């Protein structure tokens, strides 16, 4: 290990060393280190391999813009891939390795690609691999592509979502952001200050500064503490604002517990997604330095100048011993000073400008540093890491200079990502050679470096004002804050000069793109993949479009930028989904008597959002046997079925009958009080959307019954018509489905069971006939009973308040035991209705089925309007060859024909004439029964059809009226 850790300074805790491994080798760092700073301090120079050419790469940056050092941290289910080493906080026992290389970053077999690099220019794959076929090549390409190898084990950690509202959300806790948050919190505003780093301060953590008489980092610490202490303020560190959406909604990703790759230490979630609605937003996200584009600019040891300074000041890690600085602007001179201040040597400062401000060069010359003006670097040397550079001076002479670090600066890009996401347009600032925010599209203001303002005093003042600060802002020493730049977008020399380090896009690739007419910035991005890597082009985009502008002779402003997309930095799926997993993602509804069904041994399945008993298999009984047994119990004795999910909607008011006549395809207004009627609802396109039995409780009160799946939908549908179309009607709609539990007794012994349970009214067939309704008490429980039947057997549909469901269930089971009562699940219930030929909406119909298709044409109101009425007379709906609802019986065997089987007349060569919609084995008849939709089916009773798809293929069926008949042709009706 080389001694690159400086003897003092830095925001690391030298009393708390940490052991970690990188690529299997042990290293040591300190609390406060990132993986990147610890590796740099340990003298590790090659930290990864590039995506395409597998070139060795070292650290480029110190922050989120890092493009090279992508690592996998941890193993097993907690492994995380593609993390930037600059964002990984070091912890004891951390294990990390570089992604996309084998066996290691230092010796990578994939580096063979680099030899063939010339064959792999941008977009080479569009021009090749067509012969003999792409499929021969694709698997190889797929294996070569991709970065990290994720775990396929379930993620063991938890995530959560929080919602927050605030007056002011400040993104970034550098000087500008702190000033804004400080000002607003002093005014008593609800402030949220968001900082992606573990520490507040931003550039104050490493740039020398004095504010209000303190060092910058001290001031930052105190300011953040003051803000955090304010009653309505919240300071969130380790939190990245990742998205700026409509109406000042922002998404923040907070890394709460558990360092990368390690288990969470406590009960806390690993990450938290904040969904924040802010009255105002201050964007103070700073700026990112641009690399320079010159041959060999990706050699390990070539770093952003600001990163060199930051590593030294913040982590006491010197990037190298012998440095060269290459810049086109003033800001990199600070890096030279930082290197000198920390005991390094600076062999030369290469400034591409012929005449940079004299005070800059003078300050270095005074320290004995050679400055070469109007010069550039045309090559770098060293394997695998930098040992020297070739400088081409203003006269065109090349000089080779030894160096193990090259600090480069191509200027700065304000971090405008969130501003752009907010809908704001960027403007090109030619003087500073950068894109900065133009007019705001939302209640937002950018300040400081994020707005293209690099002076410390100005940044603080802008922030202060944006936070509503009155009086004088915190006072910064304002020495020499202006810097100038002379753009140098690419050094004109031969060799691979990288623009996008992560995706291995070179300046030559951009030239190729231009040559081939991919000149739009979006085409450039897509053709070369520039800016599409995991760093989203943070260091590459502006360089690339400027080079494209040069190549095509257009102003940079005309070339423009690509759109900035959320998230600002990658966000885990876990955090985005939050706690919404399993039933919290989409809750399942449970029946009021759920526990009783569990006790009865129910096997549950989801039906339309409800967890319902499919059947109640006894010990050793198959699902099929249970269904058969349950259905037979209904035919021969009595069954008990939980129909609670069936929709129930109170429709009340003077115009209730008129309203329902407008809604239903059949007439409801003639229904007498205490009677029940089946009804069909259509949508305006004439398709059947729901059916059910409606009862009239009073002249102005109906209880509308819907399908289970339609309960919420139909209540909303009724409301929509009332509120939007017929507000003049005096009607109130109240969905009451979940207020009631519905237990249905069905079978020849149903009446006996009800009697035995105790009912306070006469229930004989004449006293209480089919399709009527009564309120009464059953076993002492206030109840409503409807005489409707979905099974063909005598049925009593008993509704009680939902919280008395269990009580009723127990009473009915007790009363029913002597009569052979069996709990009946949905599947048996379906068999029973299939035997009867009763339609089940959603199974026998789809979203295009009309009333006539299911044999209800004659029941419709002829003369008056109702929803969907007009659509029924459109030509297509009057065709005679539409699919119609029929029964089918197997001719060749007793085995049921599978649902979904298509049918065709044996005489026809191709096509489908319909399909089976419901099917099962009739326990009564011992053979398959089925329902189907068949073209012109009602005119084809008796006709034989072939099953032409599925497992029943080749079998023969006969078209019948829906529902099976007894041996004498009589209905099975009880």
């Amino acid at each position, binding site marked *: 290990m080389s001694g690159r850790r400086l003897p003092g300074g830095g925001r690391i805790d030298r009393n708390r060393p940490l052991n970690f491994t990188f690529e299997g080798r042990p290293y040591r760092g300190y609390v406060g280190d990132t993986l990147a700073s610890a590796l740099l301090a340990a003298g590790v120079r090659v930290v990864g391999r590039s995506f395409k050419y597998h070139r060795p790469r070292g650290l480029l940056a110190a922050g989120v813009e890092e493009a090279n050092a992508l690592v996998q941290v941890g193993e097993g289910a907690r492994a995380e891939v593609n993390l930037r080493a600059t964002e990984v906080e070091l912890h004891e026992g951390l294990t990390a390795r570089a992604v996309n290389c084998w066996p290691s970053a230092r010796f990578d077999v994939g580096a063979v690609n680099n030899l063939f690099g010339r064959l792999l220019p941008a977009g080479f794959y569009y021009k090749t691999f067509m012969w003999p076929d792409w499929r021969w090549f694709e698997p190889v390409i797929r294996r070569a592509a991709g970065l990290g190898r994720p775990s396929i084990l379930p993620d063991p950690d938890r995530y959560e979502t929080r919602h927050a509202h605030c007056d002011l959300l400040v993104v970034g806790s550098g000087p500008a952001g702190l000033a804004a948050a400080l000002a607003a919190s002093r005014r008593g505003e609800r402030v949220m200050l968001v900082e992606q780093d573990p520490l507040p301060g931003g550039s104050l953590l490493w740039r020398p500064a004095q504010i209000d008489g303190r060092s910058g980092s001290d001031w930052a610490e105190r300011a953040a503490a003051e803000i955090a202490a304010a009653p309505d303020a919240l300071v969130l560190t380790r939190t990245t604002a990742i998205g700026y959406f409509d109406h000042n909604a922002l998404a923040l990703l907070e890394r709460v517990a558990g360092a990368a790759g390690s288990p969470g230490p406590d009960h806390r979630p690993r990450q938290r997604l904040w969904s924040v609605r802010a009255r105002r937003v201050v964007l103070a996200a700073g700026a990112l330095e641009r690399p320079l584009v010159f041959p060999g600019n990706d050699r390990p040891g070539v770093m952003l100048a600001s990163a060199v300074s930051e590593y030294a000041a913040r982590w006491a890690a010197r990037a190298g011993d012998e440095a060269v600085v290459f810049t086109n602007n003033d800001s990199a001179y600070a890096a030279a000073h930082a290197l000198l201040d920390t005991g390094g040597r600076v062999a030369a400062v290469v400034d591409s400008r012929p005449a940079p401000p004299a005070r800059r060069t003078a300050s270095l010359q005074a320290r004995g540093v050679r400055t070469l003006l109007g010069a550039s670097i045309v090559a770098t040397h060293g394997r695998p890491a930098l040992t020297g550079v070739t400088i081409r001076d203003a006269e065109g002479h090349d000089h080779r200079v030894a160096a193990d670090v090259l600090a480069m600066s191509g200027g700065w890009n304000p971090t405008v990502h969130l501003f752009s996401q907010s809908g704001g347009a960027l403007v090109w600032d030619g003087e500073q050679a950068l894109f900065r925010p133009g007019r705001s599209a939302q209640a937002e203001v950018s300040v400081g470096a994020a707005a293209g303002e690099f002076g410390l005093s100005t940044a603080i003042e802008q922030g202060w004002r944006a936070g509503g600060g009155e009086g004088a802002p915190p006072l910064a020493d304002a020495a020499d804050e202006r810097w100038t730049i002379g753009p140098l977008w690419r050094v004109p020399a031969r060799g691979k000069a990288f623009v996008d380090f992560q995706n291995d896009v070179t300046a030559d690739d951009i030239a190729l793109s231009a040559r081939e007419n991919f000149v739009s910035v979006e085409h450039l991005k897509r053709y070369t993949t520039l800016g599409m890597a*995991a760093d989203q082009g943070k260091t590459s985009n502006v360089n690339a479009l400027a080079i494209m502008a040069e190549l095509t002779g257009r102003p940079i402003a005309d070339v423009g930028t690509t759109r900035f997309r959320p998230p600002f930095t990658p966000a885990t799926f876990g955090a985005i989904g939050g706690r919404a997993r399993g039933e919290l993602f989409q809750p399942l509804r449970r029946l009021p008597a759920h526990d009783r069904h569990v006790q009865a041994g129910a096997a549950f399945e989801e039906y339309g959002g409800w967890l319902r008993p499919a059947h109640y298999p006894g010990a050793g009984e198959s699902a099929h046997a249970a269904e058969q047994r349950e259905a037979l119990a209904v035919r021969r004795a009595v069954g008990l079925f939980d129909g609670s999910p069936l929709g129930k909607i109170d429709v009340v008011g003077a115009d209730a009958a008129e309203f329902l006549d407008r809604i239903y395809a059949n007439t409801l207004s003639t229904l007498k009080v205490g009677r029940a009627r089946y009804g069909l609802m259509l949508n305006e396109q004439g398709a059947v959307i729901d059916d059910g039995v409606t009862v009239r409780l009073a002249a102005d009160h109906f209880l509308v019954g819907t399908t289970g799946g339609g309960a919420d939908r139909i209540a909303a549908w009724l409301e929509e018509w009332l509120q939007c179309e017929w507000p003049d009607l005096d009607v109130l709609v109240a969905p009451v489905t979940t207020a009631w539990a519905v237990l249905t007794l069905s079978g020849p012994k149903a009446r006996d069971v009800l009697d035995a349970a105790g009912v306070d009214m006469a229930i004989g067939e004449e006293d209480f006939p089919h399709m009527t309704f009564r309120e009464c008490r059953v076993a002492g429980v206030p109840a409503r009973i409807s005489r409707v039947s979905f099974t063909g057997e005598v049925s009593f549909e008993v509704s009680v308040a939902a919280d008395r469901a269990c009580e009723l269930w127990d009473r009915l089971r007790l009363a029913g035991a002597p009569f052979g009562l069996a709990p009946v699940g949905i599947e048996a219930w379906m068999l029973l209705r299939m035997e009867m030929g009763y339609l089940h909406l959603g199974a026998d119909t789809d979203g295009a089925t009309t009333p006539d298709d299911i044999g209800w044409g004659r029941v419709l109101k002829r003369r008056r309007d109702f929803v969907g009425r007009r659509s029924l007379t459109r030509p297509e709906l009057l065709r005679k060859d539409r699919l119609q609802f029929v029964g089918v019986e197997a001719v060749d065997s007793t085995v049921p024909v599978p649902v979904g089987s298509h049918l065709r007349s044996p005489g026809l060569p191709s096509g489908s004439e319909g399909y089976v919609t419901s099917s099962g084995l009739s326990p009564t008849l011992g053979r398959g029964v089925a329902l189907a939709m068949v073209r012109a089916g009602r005119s084809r009773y008796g006709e034989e059809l072939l099953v032409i798809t599925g497992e029943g293929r080749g079998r023969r069926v006969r078209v019948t009226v829906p529902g099976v008949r007894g041996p004498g042709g009589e209905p099975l009706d009880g």
Partner: protein
Amino acid sequence: MERYSAWRLFREALNGHRGWTPAWRSPSPKRRYDAVIIGGGGHGLATAYYLAKNHGMTNVAVVERGWLGGGNTGRNTTIVRSNYYHRESARLYDFSVRLYESLSRELNYNVMFSQRGVITLAHSRHDLEVVARWAGAAQLHGVDAEMVSVDEIKRRIPLLDTSPSARFPVWGGLMQRRGGTARHDAVAWGYARAASRLGVDIIQNCEVTGFSRNERGRVVGVETSLGPIAAGVVGLAVAGHSTVLADLAGFRLPVTSYALQAFVSEPLKPVMDTVMLSLATGAYISQSDKGGLVIGGGLDLYPSYAQRGNLPTAQRVIGALADQMPALGRVRLLRQWAGIVDVVPDSSPILGETPVEGLFINCGWGTGGFKAIPAGGTLLAHHLATGEPHPLAEPFGLRRFATGALIDEAAASGIAH
């Protein structure tokens, strides 16, 4: 223009790749074309290509407001399949898949059509019945579609939680082996290059601002930001903006524009080969050749022309996948974006004549237009060149909304893309 091949690439490599020429020409517009296609997306460019190739019409221009493929062609999740329920749809989309199968060689441009298979998951007994009917229908229409077992699904998509206790248990699925993905940009560029080679003028940054009509009301040209261009016939292929152009021409469409959100993860080494769609959550996912998981899952719920990300949609779609594929919890989302799609009441395209003479349309593909690009182009070209609808396009005319002869895939299969 040179032919692309490995040999050519090799030769160019020796020459520093200086010999490559523009993939397509960018001429100034002529004053008159036999046909002007509005919209430089996949459908528009394919239309121009097939006009030249199938019908010998080469005096053709494609005018594009922005950059080629910048609309939904470059924003979609690249799924190609043809296992549709209705005969009309299945024939149309399968025609398209067949064209895709030979497209790279035909265009001499690798569009990377990869028939990795598409699996639609059934999550309940009812789903399974729907899927069985659907599979049968597709088979009858000559499309490969088969039911696959849970075991097979588990084998192909190990990331998927197939346990019975999953919130969305997997009961089985429908698989089209010939389905897959293609490289979206390459489809636009490949057609552009091939069309340009045949003489078609491709004019970017040219916004249509109006239509010129003769005294009978027939469209005889377009007014553009680059000046008027006379046209024998005009084709419209501007998904997302169909009604905006229809307004300019003076008619209305049963189309509403919605934002479709799409997502991509960071690049990963291969973790899934097959394309997967879930009937329960509506989420769909595949892994691109670059390694990113490409994800979609339904529309924002209100009309929009803003191509912007939205958080609730991300939470719904990404949350669904984090639940259905529990290992994805630690995988990271790289980018979210949106495209503006034409939503039609029956989820089927509108192809053919408009109420305005001389103006023909290709629109209404909803979220699934990418897979139909070769077919959409062929059919519109046929109509423009012959004046008659292609037989495959006939059922998809505007007239169906008045007669009620809708081709409603969502109603039949529960899936609208």
